[in-house]
Protein backbone atom coordinates (compact mmCIF):
# COMPACT_ATOMS: atom_id res chain seq x y z
CA UNK A 1 0.00 0.00 0.00
CA UNK A 2 2.68 2.46 1.09
CA UNK A 3 6.22 1.74 -0.03
CA UNK A 4 9.07 3.99 1.01
CA UNK A 5 12.41 3.19 -0.61
CA UNK A 6 15.60 4.94 0.54
CA UNK A 7 13.70 8.16 1.10
CA UNK A 8 15.90 11.19 1.79
CA UNK A 9 14.47 14.65 2.21
CA UNK A 10 16.36 17.90 2.45
CA UNK A 11 14.84 21.34 2.80
CA UNK A 12 16.04 24.00 0.39
CA UNK A 13 18.28 25.52 3.05
CA UNK A 14 20.21 22.22 3.05
CA UNK A 15 18.75 20.85 6.29
CA UNK A 16 18.60 17.11 5.97
CA UNK A 17 15.38 15.99 7.68
CA UNK A 18 14.86 12.42 6.51
CA UNK A 19 17.79 10.08 5.97
CA UNK A 20 17.46 6.92 3.98
CA UNK A 21 14.09 5.70 5.23
CA UNK A 22 12.74 2.30 4.26
CA UNK A 23 9.21 1.64 5.44
CA UNK A 24 6.57 -0.66 4.05
CA UNK A 25 3.01 -0.31 5.23
CA UNK A 26 0.54 -2.96 4.15
CA UNK A 27 -3.17 -2.64 3.57
CA UNK A 28 -5.20 -2.54 6.79
CA UNK A 29 -2.32 -1.66 9.12
CA UNK A 30 -2.61 0.85 11.96
CA UNK A 31 0.83 2.42 12.32
CA UNK A 32 1.78 5.11 14.81
CA UNK A 33 4.84 7.24 14.15
CA UNK A 34 6.37 8.68 17.29
CA UNK A 35 9.48 10.67 18.12
CA UNK A 36 10.51 13.95 19.60
CA UNK A 37 9.74 17.31 18.01
CA UNK A 38 11.93 17.90 14.98
CA UNK A 39 12.52 14.18 14.34
CA UNK A 40 10.91 14.50 10.89
CA UNK A 41 7.49 12.96 11.59
CA UNK A 42 5.42 15.59 9.83
CA UNK A 43 7.93 15.82 6.98
CA UNK A 44 7.54 12.07 6.49
CA UNK A 45 3.74 12.38 6.41
CA UNK A 46 3.89 15.22 3.90
CA UNK A 47 6.09 13.05 1.69
CA UNK A 48 3.34 10.44 1.66
CA UNK A 49 0.81 12.54 -0.23
CA UNK A 50 3.22 14.52 -2.37
CA UNK A 51 3.04 17.82 -0.49
CA UNK A 52 6.80 17.37 -0.31
CA UNK A 53 8.69 15.49 -3.01
CA UNK A 54 11.58 13.20 -2.07
CA UNK A 55 15.07 14.63 -2.57
CA UNK A 56 16.31 11.09 -3.13
CA UNK A 57 14.62 7.71 -3.15
CA UNK A 58 11.02 7.00 -3.89
CA UNK A 59 7.59 6.92 -2.27
CA UNK A 60 4.95 4.71 -3.85
CA UNK A 61 1.30 5.04 -2.86
CA UNK A 62 -0.80 2.21 -4.34
CA UNK A 63 1.87 1.99 -7.04
CA UNK A 64 1.83 5.72 -7.83
CA UNK A 65 5.18 7.47 -7.60
CA UNK A 66 4.58 10.63 -5.53
CA UNK A 67 7.33 12.55 -7.30
CA UNK A 68 5.47 12.15 -10.59
CA UNK A 69 1.92 12.58 -9.27
CA UNK A 70 0.22 15.79 -8.17
CA UNK A 71 -1.08 16.01 -4.62
CA UNK A 72 -4.56 16.74 -5.94
CA UNK A 73 -4.46 13.39 -7.76
CA UNK A 74 -3.00 11.52 -4.80
CA UNK A 75 -5.85 12.98 -2.72
CA UNK A 76 -8.08 10.27 -4.23
CA UNK A 77 -5.86 7.57 -2.72
CA UNK A 78 -4.73 9.08 0.52
CA UNK A 79 -6.63 11.28 2.99
CA UNK A 80 -4.67 13.68 5.17
CA UNK A 81 -5.98 15.15 8.44
CA UNK A 82 -3.99 18.09 9.76
CA UNK A 83 -3.47 19.09 13.35
CA UNK A 84 -5.34 22.36 13.07
CA UNK A 85 -8.81 22.18 11.47
CA UNK A 86 -8.87 25.96 11.09
CA UNK A 87 -6.28 25.71 8.34
CA UNK A 88 -8.84 24.20 6.02
CA UNK A 89 -12.33 25.25 7.07
CA UNK A 90 -13.69 28.01 4.84
CA UNK A 91 -17.27 27.15 3.86
CA UNK A 92 -20.39 28.58 5.45
CA UNK A 93 -21.99 25.19 6.12
CA UNK A 94 -20.63 21.88 7.36
CA UNK A 95 -22.13 20.24 4.28
CA UNK A 96 -20.17 22.42 1.84
CA UNK A 97 -17.02 21.94 3.86
CA UNK A 98 -17.28 18.15 3.69
CA UNK A 99 -18.23 18.29 0.01
CA UNK A 100 -15.22 20.44 -0.97
CA UNK A 101 -12.88 17.52 -1.64
CA UNK A 102 -15.56 15.60 -3.55
CA UNK A 103 -16.24 18.55 -5.83
CA UNK A 104 -12.51 18.87 -6.44
CA UNK A 105 -12.30 15.29 -7.66
CA UNK A 106 -15.28 15.71 -9.97
CA UNK A 107 -17.90 13.48 -8.39
CA UNK A 108 -21.50 13.90 -9.57
CA UNK A 109 -23.88 15.98 -7.40
CA UNK A 110 -26.23 13.05 -6.65
CA UNK A 111 -23.41 10.98 -5.29
CA UNK A 112 -21.93 13.88 -3.32
CA UNK A 113 -25.03 14.23 -1.17
CA UNK A 114 -25.02 10.63 0.03
CA UNK A 115 -21.24 10.55 0.43
CA UNK A 116 -21.29 13.70 2.56
CA UNK A 117 -24.11 12.30 4.68
CA UNK A 118 -22.24 9.03 5.23
CA UNK A 119 -19.05 10.82 6.20
CA UNK A 120 -20.91 13.13 8.59
CA UNK A 121 -22.64 10.13 10.13
CA UNK A 122 -19.34 8.38 10.78
CA UNK A 123 -18.15 11.33 12.86
CA UNK A 124 -21.56 11.91 14.48
CA UNK A 125 -22.23 15.28 12.84
CA UNK A 126 -25.16 14.34 10.60
CA UNK A 127 -27.48 16.74 12.44
CA UNK A 128 -25.04 19.63 12.03
CA UNK A 129 -24.84 19.62 8.22
CA UNK A 130 -26.56 23.00 7.89
CA UNK A 131 -24.58 24.65 10.71
CA UNK A 132 -21.77 27.12 10.25
CA UNK A 133 -18.53 25.26 10.99
CA UNK A 134 -17.03 28.32 12.69
CA UNK A 135 -19.79 28.17 15.32
CA UNK A 136 -18.80 24.64 16.38
CA UNK A 137 -16.44 23.70 19.19
CA UNK A 138 -12.78 22.88 18.48
CA UNK A 139 -13.45 19.16 18.87
CA UNK A 140 -16.40 19.35 16.48
CA UNK A 141 -14.38 21.37 13.97
CA UNK A 142 -11.71 18.66 14.04
CA UNK A 143 -14.44 16.12 13.34
CA UNK A 144 -15.68 18.26 10.42
CA UNK A 145 -12.13 18.20 9.06
CA UNK A 146 -12.00 14.43 9.58
CA UNK A 147 -15.35 14.00 7.80
CA UNK A 148 -14.13 16.09 4.88
CA UNK A 149 -11.21 13.69 4.56
CA UNK A 150 -13.39 10.60 5.05
CA UNK A 151 -15.86 11.75 2.39
CA UNK A 152 -13.17 11.19 -0.23
CA UNK A 153 -13.36 7.47 0.67
CA UNK A 154 -9.65 6.93 0.37
CA UNK A 155 -8.08 3.62 1.37
CA UNK A 156 -5.29 5.29 3.32
CA UNK A 157 -5.78 7.82 6.09
CA UNK A 158 -2.89 9.91 7.38
CA UNK A 159 -3.37 11.76 10.66
CA UNK A 160 -0.97 14.41 11.92
CA UNK A 161 -1.45 14.74 15.68
CA UNK A 162 -5.24 14.54 15.38
CA UNK A 163 -5.87 14.87 19.13
CA UNK A 164 -3.56 17.79 19.90
CA UNK A 165 -5.34 20.80 21.35
CA UNK A 166 -8.46 18.81 22.19
CA UNK A 167 -9.72 17.73 25.56
CA UNK A 168 -9.50 14.10 26.60
CA UNK A 169 -13.00 13.14 25.48
CA UNK A 170 -12.75 14.92 22.14
CA UNK A 171 -9.48 13.11 21.51
CA UNK A 172 -11.01 9.75 22.40
CA UNK A 173 -13.98 10.37 20.10
CA UNK A 174 -11.62 10.97 17.17
CA UNK A 175 -9.61 7.87 18.04
CA UNK A 176 -12.72 5.68 18.34
CA UNK A 177 -13.79 6.81 14.85
CA UNK A 178 -10.33 6.05 13.51
CA UNK A 179 -10.34 2.64 15.17
CA UNK A 180 -13.68 1.84 13.56
CA UNK A 181 -12.34 2.89 10.14
CA UNK A 182 -9.32 0.66 10.62
CA UNK A 183 -11.63 -2.22 11.50
CA UNK A 184 -13.41 -1.61 8.17
CA UNK A 185 -10.10 -2.14 6.40
CA UNK A 186 -8.62 1.34 6.01
CA UNK A 187 -4.89 1.76 6.40
CA UNK A 188 -4.05 4.27 9.12
CA UNK A 189 -0.79 6.16 9.60
CA UNK A 190 -0.80 8.46 12.60
CA UNK A 191 1.68 10.82 14.24
CA UNK A 192 1.11 11.48 17.92
CA UNK A 193 2.83 12.33 21.19
CA UNK A 194 0.26 10.57 23.34
CA UNK A 195 1.70 7.21 24.39
CA UNK A 196 -1.56 6.11 25.99
CA UNK A 197 -3.29 6.47 22.62
CA UNK A 198 -0.49 4.61 20.91
CA UNK A 199 -0.76 1.72 23.39
CA UNK A 200 -4.52 1.60 23.10
CA UNK A 201 -5.03 1.93 19.34
CA UNK A 202 -1.92 1.34 17.25
CA UNK A 203 -0.88 -2.11 16.07
CA UNK A 204 2.52 -1.08 14.78
CA UNK A 205 4.85 1.62 16.11
CA UNK A 206 7.71 3.35 14.33
CA UNK A 207 10.10 5.58 16.27
CA UNK A 208 11.82 8.28 14.24
CA UNK A 209 14.91 9.97 15.59
CA UNK A 210 16.81 12.69 13.72
CA UNK A 211 15.35 11.47 10.44
CA UNK A 212 16.08 7.77 10.81
CA UNK A 213 13.98 4.85 11.99
CA UNK A 214 15.35 3.58 15.30
CA UNK A 215 12.53 1.17 16.12
CA UNK A 216 9.87 -0.46 13.96
CA UNK A 217 7.68 -3.29 15.22
CA UNK A 218 4.45 -4.26 16.93
CA UNK A 219 3.17 -1.92 19.62
CA UNK A 220 4.18 -4.33 22.39
CA UNK A 221 7.70 -4.77 21.04
CA UNK A 222 8.43 -1.09 20.59
CA UNK A 223 6.79 0.21 23.76
CA UNK A 224 8.92 -2.08 25.90
CA UNK A 225 12.14 -0.63 24.44
CA UNK A 226 12.56 1.88 27.23
CA UNK A 227 15.98 3.04 26.06
CA UNK A 228 14.88 3.92 22.55
CA UNK A 229 11.86 5.71 23.96
CA UNK A 230 13.96 7.64 26.47
CA UNK A 231 16.30 8.73 23.65
CA UNK A 232 13.30 10.29 21.96
CA UNK A 233 12.02 12.08 25.08
CA UNK A 234 9.21 9.54 25.38
CA UNK A 235 8.03 7.37 28.22
CA UNK A 236 6.19 4.05 28.02
CA UNK A 237 2.51 4.22 29.00
CA UNK A 238 1.76 4.23 32.74
CA UNK A 239 0.13 0.80 32.69
CA UNK A 240 3.41 -0.61 31.38
CA UNK A 241 5.49 1.16 34.04
CA UNK A 242 3.16 -0.10 36.77
CA UNK A 243 3.30 -3.65 35.42
CA UNK A 244 7.12 -3.45 35.46
CA UNK A 245 7.05 -2.55 39.17
CA UNK A 246 4.77 -5.48 39.89
CA UNK A 247 7.02 -7.79 37.86
CA UNK A 248 9.98 -6.92 40.10
CA UNK A 249 7.92 -8.37 42.97
CA UNK A 250 7.08 -11.40 40.88
CA UNK A 251 3.53 -10.49 39.87
CA UNK A 252 1.74 -10.14 36.54
CA UNK A 253 2.99 -10.10 32.94
CA UNK A 254 3.67 -7.06 30.73
CA UNK A 255 0.61 -4.93 30.11
CA UNK A 256 0.31 -1.80 28.00
CA UNK A 257 -3.17 -0.43 28.62
CA UNK A 258 -5.32 0.20 31.66
CA UNK A 259 -7.77 -2.46 30.44
CA UNK A 260 -5.06 -5.15 30.27
CA UNK A 261 -3.79 -4.16 33.70
CA UNK A 262 -7.29 -4.38 35.08
CA UNK A 263 -7.73 -7.85 33.58
CA UNK A 264 -4.45 -8.98 35.17
CA UNK A 265 -5.39 -7.67 38.59
CA UNK A 266 -8.95 -8.97 38.51
CA UNK A 267 -7.89 -12.48 37.50
CA UNK A 268 -5.26 -12.44 40.25
CA UNK A 269 -7.81 -11.27 42.83
CA UNK A 270 -10.30 -13.93 41.69
CA UNK A 271 -7.59 -16.53 42.18
CA UNK A 272 -6.96 -15.25 45.71
CA UNK A 273 -10.66 -15.24 46.49
CA UNK A 274 -11.07 -18.80 45.30
CA UNK A 275 -8.06 -19.82 47.37
CA UNK A 276 -9.64 -18.21 50.45
CA UNK A 277 -13.00 -19.85 49.79
CA UNK A 278 -11.45 -23.29 49.47
Amino acid sequence: MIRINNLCYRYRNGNSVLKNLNINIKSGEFAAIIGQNGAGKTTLLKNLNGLLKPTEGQVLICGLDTSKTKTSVLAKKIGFLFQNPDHQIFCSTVFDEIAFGLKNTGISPNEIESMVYNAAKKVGLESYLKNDPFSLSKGQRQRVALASVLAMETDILVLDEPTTGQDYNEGLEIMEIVKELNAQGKTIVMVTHDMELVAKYAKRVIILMKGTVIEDGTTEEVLSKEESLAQSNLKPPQAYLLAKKFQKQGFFRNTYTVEDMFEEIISYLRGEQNACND
Partner: protein
Amino acid sequence: MPAMIEYIQKDSFFHRLHPITKILWTFGVLIISFLFSTPLPIFIILLSNILIAVASGIFKQVFPAIKALFLFSLLLIVFQIFFVTEGNTLFYAIPFTNIGRVTDVGLNLSLVMSFRMVATVSTIPILMMTTPMTDMVVVLVEKLKIPFKFAFMFITALRFIPTLLGEIEQIMQAQMSRGYNSDTRNPFKKIIIIIPLAIPLLVSSIKKTEKMAISMEARGFASGPRSYYKKIMMKKEDYASLFVLISVIFITAIVF
Protein backbone atom coordinates in the same frame (compact mmCIF):
# COMPACT_ATOMS: atom_id res chain seq x y z
CA MET B 1 8.89 33.95 -2.43
CA PRO B 2 8.59 37.63 -3.34
CA ALA B 3 11.51 39.96 -2.73
CA MET B 4 11.33 40.86 0.93
CA ILE B 5 12.55 44.11 2.40
CA GLU B 6 13.95 43.15 5.76
CA TYR B 7 17.07 43.85 7.80
CA ILE B 8 20.18 42.04 6.62
CA GLN B 9 22.80 41.63 9.27
CA LYS B 10 26.19 42.88 8.07
CA ASP B 11 28.91 44.98 9.62
CA SER B 12 29.51 47.83 7.21
CA PHE B 13 30.00 51.57 7.56
CA PHE B 14 26.49 52.24 6.35
CA HIS B 15 25.04 49.64 8.74
CA ARG B 16 26.70 51.32 11.70
CA LEU B 17 25.37 54.80 10.91
CA HIS B 18 22.67 56.24 13.13
CA PRO B 19 19.16 55.65 11.71
CA ILE B 20 18.51 59.39 11.61
CA THR B 21 21.61 59.92 9.47
CA LYS B 22 20.25 57.36 7.03
CA ILE B 23 16.76 58.84 7.06
CA LEU B 24 18.27 62.27 6.34
CA TRP B 25 20.28 60.66 3.54
CA THR B 26 17.06 59.49 1.87
CA PHE B 27 15.72 63.05 2.10
CA GLY B 28 19.05 64.40 0.82
CA VAL B 29 18.85 62.15 -2.24
CA LEU B 30 15.29 63.35 -2.78
CA ILE B 31 16.26 67.04 -2.60
CA ILE B 32 19.29 66.69 -4.86
CA SER B 33 17.35 64.70 -7.46
CA PHE B 34 14.82 67.50 -7.66
CA LEU B 35 17.43 70.23 -7.85
CA PHE B 36 18.78 68.83 -11.10
CA SER B 37 16.83 68.92 -14.31
CA THR B 38 19.20 67.00 -16.58
CA PRO B 39 19.39 63.20 -16.59
CA LEU B 40 23.14 62.71 -16.12
CA PRO B 41 23.59 64.10 -12.55
CA ILE B 42 20.50 62.23 -11.36
CA PHE B 43 21.90 59.09 -12.90
CA ILE B 44 25.12 59.70 -10.94
CA ILE B 45 23.08 59.93 -7.70
CA LEU B 46 21.41 56.66 -8.63
CA LEU B 47 24.87 55.14 -9.14
CA SER B 48 25.91 56.44 -5.71
CA ASN B 49 22.91 54.61 -4.19
CA ILE B 50 23.98 51.41 -5.90
CA LEU B 51 27.57 51.97 -4.70
CA ILE B 52 26.29 52.31 -1.11
CA ALA B 53 24.35 49.06 -1.52
CA VAL B 54 27.47 47.30 -2.85
CA ALA B 55 29.65 48.72 -0.05
CA SER B 56 27.10 47.53 2.53
CA GLY B 57 27.12 44.05 1.04
CA ILE B 58 23.40 44.04 0.28
CA PHE B 59 23.49 44.54 -3.50
CA LYS B 60 22.24 41.01 -4.16
CA GLN B 61 19.16 41.60 -2.03
CA VAL B 62 18.51 45.15 -3.30
CA PHE B 63 18.96 44.25 -6.95
CA PRO B 64 15.45 42.76 -7.49
CA ALA B 65 13.88 45.95 -6.10
CA ILE B 66 16.02 48.18 -8.32
CA LYS B 67 15.29 46.01 -11.34
CA ALA B 68 11.55 46.27 -10.69
CA LEU B 69 11.86 50.05 -10.32
CA PHE B 70 13.71 50.26 -13.65
CA LEU B 71 10.99 48.27 -15.39
CA PHE B 72 8.40 50.60 -13.92
CA SER B 73 10.44 53.63 -15.01
CA LEU B 74 10.49 52.26 -18.57
CA LEU B 75 6.72 52.36 -18.45
CA LEU B 76 6.92 55.98 -17.27
CA ILE B 77 9.18 56.83 -20.21
CA VAL B 78 6.83 55.22 -22.71
CA PHE B 79 3.86 57.13 -21.32
CA GLN B 80 5.73 60.43 -21.21
CA ILE B 81 7.88 60.59 -24.25
CA PHE B 82 5.28 60.77 -27.04
CA PHE B 83 3.17 63.44 -25.42
CA VAL B 84 5.74 66.21 -25.38
CA THR B 85 5.38 68.35 -28.48
CA GLU B 86 7.96 71.06 -27.73
CA GLY B 87 11.53 70.95 -28.95
CA ASN B 88 13.26 69.61 -32.03
CA THR B 89 12.34 66.29 -33.49
CA LEU B 90 14.95 63.63 -32.82
CA PHE B 91 13.35 60.61 -34.44
CA TYR B 92 10.05 58.83 -34.97
CA ALA B 93 9.15 55.62 -33.15
CA ILE B 94 8.11 54.12 -36.49
CA PRO B 95 10.65 55.24 -39.09
CA PHE B 96 9.58 57.15 -42.27
CA THR B 97 6.15 57.96 -40.80
CA ASN B 98 4.82 60.77 -38.64
CA ILE B 99 3.82 58.42 -35.82
CA GLY B 100 5.51 58.59 -32.42
CA ARG B 101 7.45 61.83 -32.65
CA VAL B 102 10.20 62.05 -30.04
CA THR B 103 11.68 65.48 -29.25
CA ASP B 104 14.86 66.35 -27.39
CA VAL B 105 12.83 68.05 -24.66
CA GLY B 106 10.57 65.01 -24.34
CA LEU B 107 13.49 62.62 -24.12
CA ASN B 108 15.19 64.79 -21.52
CA LEU B 109 12.03 65.18 -19.44
CA SER B 110 11.10 61.50 -19.40
CA LEU B 111 14.66 60.40 -18.58
CA VAL B 112 14.79 62.91 -15.71
CA MET B 113 11.42 61.65 -14.42
CA SER B 114 12.37 58.00 -14.51
CA PHE B 115 15.87 58.42 -13.04
CA ARG B 116 14.43 60.62 -10.30
CA MET B 117 11.87 57.97 -9.45
CA VAL B 118 14.42 55.14 -9.32
CA ALA B 119 17.00 57.23 -7.42
CA THR B 120 14.60 58.41 -4.73
CA VAL B 121 12.63 55.21 -4.25
CA SER B 122 15.65 52.88 -4.24
CA THR B 123 16.92 54.55 -1.05
CA ILE B 124 14.03 53.01 0.89
CA PRO B 125 15.01 49.33 0.53
CA ILE B 126 18.64 50.28 1.21
CA LEU B 127 17.56 52.09 4.38
CA MET B 128 15.38 49.17 5.54
CA MET B 129 17.98 46.52 4.81
CA THR B 130 20.75 48.28 6.71
CA THR B 131 18.73 49.36 9.75
CA PRO B 132 17.23 46.94 12.31
CA MET B 133 13.51 47.52 12.70
CA THR B 134 13.74 47.99 16.47
CA ASP B 135 16.40 50.71 16.09
CA MET B 136 14.21 52.45 13.58
CA VAL B 137 11.25 52.41 15.95
CA VAL B 138 13.29 53.63 18.92
CA VAL B 139 14.53 56.54 16.83
CA LEU B 140 11.14 57.35 15.35
CA VAL B 141 9.51 57.41 18.76
CA GLU B 142 12.26 58.94 20.88
CA LYS B 143 13.85 61.43 18.51
CA LEU B 144 11.13 62.19 16.00
CA LYS B 145 8.31 62.01 18.58
CA ILE B 146 6.05 59.74 16.54
CA PRO B 147 3.42 58.15 18.85
CA PHE B 148 4.61 54.70 19.89
CA LYS B 149 1.33 53.06 18.90
CA PHE B 150 1.80 54.11 15.27
CA ALA B 151 5.39 52.98 15.22
CA PHE B 152 4.30 49.71 16.82
CA MET B 153 1.56 49.15 14.24
CA PHE B 154 4.08 49.66 11.46
CA ILE B 155 6.69 47.29 12.90
CA THR B 156 4.10 44.61 13.69
CA ALA B 157 2.63 44.73 10.21
CA LEU B 158 6.07 44.14 8.71
CA ARG B 159 6.93 41.44 11.23
CA PHE B 160 3.79 39.49 10.36
CA ILE B 161 4.51 39.14 6.64
CA PRO B 162 6.72 36.02 7.00
CA THR B 163 4.33 34.55 9.60
CA LEU B 164 1.40 34.92 7.23
CA LEU B 165 3.38 33.46 4.34
CA GLY B 166 4.02 30.39 6.52
CA GLU B 167 0.34 30.25 7.37
CA ILE B 168 -0.64 30.37 3.69
CA GLU B 169 1.74 27.47 3.02
CA GLN B 170 0.01 25.40 5.74
CA ILE B 171 -3.46 26.25 4.42
CA MET B 172 -2.42 25.51 0.86
CA GLN B 173 -1.15 22.08 1.91
CA ALA B 174 -4.34 21.33 3.84
CA GLN B 175 -6.48 22.20 0.81
CA MET B 176 -4.24 20.38 -1.66
CA SER B 177 -4.64 17.25 0.47
CA ARG B 178 -8.35 17.51 -0.27
CA GLY B 179 -7.81 17.61 -4.01
CA TYR B 180 -7.59 21.39 -4.32
CA ASN B 181 -5.71 22.40 -7.44
CA SER B 182 -4.42 25.92 -7.78
CA ASP B 183 -3.07 25.85 -11.32
CA THR B 184 -5.29 27.79 -13.64
CA ARG B 185 -4.58 30.53 -16.15
CA ASN B 186 -8.10 31.88 -16.25
CA PRO B 187 -8.07 35.11 -14.20
CA PHE B 188 -11.75 34.79 -13.27
CA LYS B 189 -11.19 31.27 -11.96
CA LYS B 190 -8.15 32.54 -10.06
CA ILE B 191 -10.42 34.78 -7.98
CA ILE B 192 -12.74 31.93 -7.09
CA ILE B 193 -9.87 29.58 -6.47
CA ILE B 194 -8.39 31.90 -3.86
CA ILE B 195 -11.41 31.65 -1.52
CA PRO B 196 -10.39 28.33 0.13
CA LEU B 197 -7.06 29.99 1.02
CA ALA B 198 -8.27 33.48 1.87
CA ILE B 199 -10.98 32.60 4.37
CA PRO B 200 -8.91 30.33 6.65
CA LEU B 201 -6.11 32.91 6.49
CA LEU B 202 -8.48 35.71 7.48
CA VAL B 203 -9.97 33.67 10.33
CA SER B 204 -6.60 32.61 11.69
CA SER B 205 -5.16 36.14 11.39
CA ILE B 206 -8.04 37.58 13.38
CA LYS B 207 -7.57 34.92 16.03
CA LYS B 208 -3.85 35.60 16.12
CA THR B 209 -4.41 39.34 16.47
CA GLU B 210 -6.80 38.77 19.33
CA LYS B 211 -4.34 36.51 21.15
CA MET B 212 -1.54 38.96 20.59
CA ALA B 213 -3.57 41.89 21.91
CA ILE B 214 -4.44 39.93 25.04
CA SER B 215 -0.88 38.80 25.69
CA MET B 216 0.40 42.34 25.16
CA GLU B 217 -2.09 43.77 27.58
CA ALA B 218 -1.17 41.10 30.09
CA ARG B 219 2.40 42.40 29.90
CA GLY B 220 1.39 46.01 30.44
CA PHE B 221 1.26 47.43 26.92
CA ALA B 222 0.34 51.14 26.86
CA SER B 223 0.17 51.31 30.64
CA GLY B 224 2.41 54.34 30.99
CA PRO B 225 5.61 55.99 29.80
CA ARG B 226 8.00 53.62 28.06
CA SER B 227 11.69 53.20 28.58
CA TYR B 228 14.09 51.85 25.99
CA TYR B 229 16.73 49.24 26.58
CA LYS B 230 18.85 50.30 23.66
CA LYS B 231 20.53 53.69 23.53
CA ILE B 232 21.46 54.79 20.02
CA MET B 233 23.85 57.68 19.86
CA MET B 234 25.10 59.88 17.03
CA LYS B 235 28.81 59.21 16.47
CA LYS B 236 31.66 60.99 14.69
CA GLU B 237 30.91 59.11 11.48
CA ASP B 238 27.33 60.35 11.59
CA TYR B 239 28.36 63.99 11.91
CA ALA B 240 30.94 63.55 9.16
CA SER B 241 28.38 61.90 6.82
CA LEU B 242 25.80 64.58 7.54
CA PHE B 243 28.40 67.27 6.84
CA VAL B 244 29.18 65.70 3.47
CA LEU B 245 25.49 65.33 2.66
CA ILE B 246 24.61 68.92 3.55
CA SER B 247 27.60 70.34 1.65
CA VAL B 248 26.63 68.38 -1.44
CA ILE B 249 23.09 69.75 -1.21
CA PHE B 250 24.37 73.33 -0.78
CA ILE B 251 26.85 73.06 -3.60
CA THR B 252 24.23 71.74 -6.00
CA ALA B 253 21.74 74.37 -4.87
CA ILE B 254 24.22 77.21 -5.40
CA VAL B 255 26.10 76.00 -8.46
CA PHE B 256 23.28 74.58 -10.55
